[in-house]
């Protein structure tokens, strides 16, 4: 079907995503895209963007993208496809073509600082549990907990594990008790004006409260998000920190575990930040642990379905993806699937509740902590 090029929109898109012009339509992106189907074709979308003919139909489906970044990681010309997706979402938001669920999510973040509906009571109970475990006087590192953990006891165990492991490495561990969403989900909703206002306030709150040179996150989404607007403080994901502590000998992994595990790469570590070897080094540093890979791993790994706001938006693809991913993990024959992301863990464990496999879903730090013991 012939189309009329919209030159002004084309120029506008090229300005915000300059690499857009480099696409020669090889189709690698849509081949590896985990959600490609008759309604969603990322290659076609890039083409339409090049021609400036993005329209309401694209606005409708753009919310299905899980921003896993597989397309971008494998693109031979490094086109910033995820950026393009976010730009189209902003356009869709402006044209008022978006799932109404987004309104609900944004109100919750506005009123409770998290998209899950956790209230001040949940935050108070969370704070009470951790007040005795942390040192916010003169910490070496400060943990930034993902807001999803505020009302989730299972995720809180991961934070406790991280505190124990870091303490073993001789660090004084603090925690940011503002318990706010890092803004990741707001950004994926395309609401730029609210994102700016929210993150400016959050940035000031964090900078006024954090008295350590390093902020460590459990969720790669928090890490990725905080890095965008926090300056003057180092932000790392815990796998990077643990890898460094083990390699420099500060954390001694001297206990054995006779077990086969597999590792699910969180997209926002592997594809968006190229943190691929660090978690593997941490896993294999444990004597006796055998690491087996899934069919899709590293930069080709399959998304758990949570990304791009999918965990809060509950899009049609998100739970499907988590089940697909868990099946791959089961097929490795491992007895535990490890991950290093709050969202991934929640998605995979929820899928496991439905699928009832014999596999155990664990966060990497929880696993390491269980091996190290007391």
């Amino acid at each position: 079907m012939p189309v009329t090029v919209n030159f002004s929109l084309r120029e506008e898109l090229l300005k915000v995503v300059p690499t857009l012009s480099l696409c020669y339509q090889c189709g690698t992106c849509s081949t590896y895209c985990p959600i490609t189907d008759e309604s969603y074709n990322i290659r076609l979308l890039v083409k339409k963007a090049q021609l400036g003919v993005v329209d309401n139909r694209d606005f409708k489906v753009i919310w299905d993208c899980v921003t896993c970044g597989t397309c971008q990681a494998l693109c031979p010309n490094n086109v910033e496809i995820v950026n393009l997706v976010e730009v189209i979402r902003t356009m869709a938001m402006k044209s008022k073509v978006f799932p109404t669920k987004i309104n609900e999510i944004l109100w919750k973040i506005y009123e409770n600082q998290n998209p899950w509906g956790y209230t001040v009571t949940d935050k108070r109970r969370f704070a009470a549990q951790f007040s005795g475990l942390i040192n916010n006087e003169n910490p070496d590192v400060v943990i930034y907990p993902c807001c999803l953990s505020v009302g989730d006891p299972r995720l809180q165990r991961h934070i406790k594990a991280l505190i124990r492991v870091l303490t073993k490495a001789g660090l004084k561990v603090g925690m940011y008790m503002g318990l706010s969403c890092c803004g990741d989900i707001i950004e994926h909703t395309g609401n730029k004006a609210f994102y700016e206002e929210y993150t400016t306030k959050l940035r000031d709150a964090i900078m006024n409260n954090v008295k350590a040179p390093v902020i460590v996150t459990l969720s790669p989404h928090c890490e990725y998000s905080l890095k965008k607007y926090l300056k003057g403080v180092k932000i790392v994901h815990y796998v990077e920190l643990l890898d460094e502590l083990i390699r420099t000998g500060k954390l001694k992994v001297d206990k054995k575990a006779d077990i086969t595990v597999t590792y699910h790469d969180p997209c926002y570590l592997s594809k968006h930040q190229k943190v691929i070897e660090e978690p593997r080094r941490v896993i294999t540093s444990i004597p006796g642990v055998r690491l087996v890979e899934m069919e899709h791993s590293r930069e080709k790994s399959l998304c758990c379905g949570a990304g791009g706001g999918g965990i809060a938006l509950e899009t049609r693809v998100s739970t499907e993806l988590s089940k697909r991913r868990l099946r791959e993990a089961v097929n490795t024959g491992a007895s535990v699937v490890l991950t290093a992301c709050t969202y991934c863990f929640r998605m995979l464990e929820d899928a496991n509740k439905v699928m009832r496999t014999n596999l155990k879903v664990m966060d990497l730090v929880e696993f390491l902590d269980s091996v190290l013991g007391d």
Partner: protein
Amino acid sequence: MSEWRGISVFIEQDNGELERASLEVLTRAGELGRKFNEEVLGILLGHETDNLVKEASGYGADKLIVIDHPDLRHYNSDAYTEVVSYIINKYRPRYLLLPATRNSRDLAGRLAVRFRACLSAHVIMVDIDEKDRKLVTAVPGFGGNIVATVVCTGGKPEIATVSPGTYEARVSDKEATVIKETVPADLVERRRIELVEKSVSPMPDLSRAERVVVAGLGTGGDLELVKEFANLIGAAVGVTRPLADMGIVPRDYQIGTTGVSLRAKVAFVFGASGAPHFVYGIRDCGTIVAVNTDREAPIFENCDYCVVADLFDILKALIKELGGGK
């Protein structure tokens, strides 16, 4: 003008369906009437009301005033306000009690302004002051955490709407004298609201159910197993406020201060954290079992058997043990 005397109770019906909560209020009015030597007046509006009259006359009223008119078959805010106002002006009851249901709250809000009278809404206790005979009520506020004692300081009749389930409806040995009233036709016709369509399905009477299974936010709105389990043990299903807010079930199934208060012998509570407004709604239950993943959840302070586990695991196990499931 005569003095304002007696306790009147609005007996709610809609399309021939008697609202049980009115009988609870009537029973309470009967108690107060005996204690304070006040006549108890039931007011019933409807059409073809014989069965309703028979049923309602045995719950402690001295007189039952019945206004039967085809246009009163269905609740109509305008027509009901006019007719009840007419009756109040004629009988001049000092007190007017109504069940705190949607329709009666609608009516009470209009009557209070019409008569420039005090109104306590959604009360969980209604009494009369021994000394000055003013209406005294307990009104939950702020989501149900705090209860205010409220007295009427002006206007007659002194009005209150009473939360369903607050009092038990008990058959009295007293049989009410039925008085059929006719009202000027224009009162019924002077209305600006017309019914176009109506659709209702029978509702389980939660406040009278012996066993109730309550689903909270922890279910994420997935009520399949909850319903299956409830069926197996012959229980009614209720929900907490967040679930009703989500629109998964009608608000009629909401348990708590602004919903239904339970009187069940056994109540199962799955995935509710135990907010005060909810706990209020289960206070009169016999034995309460709560299942929640969070050991620190306040619901465990307010139940008899506490289970820290995934609620779906427990539901599946219960269903299996009871011989259900596919």
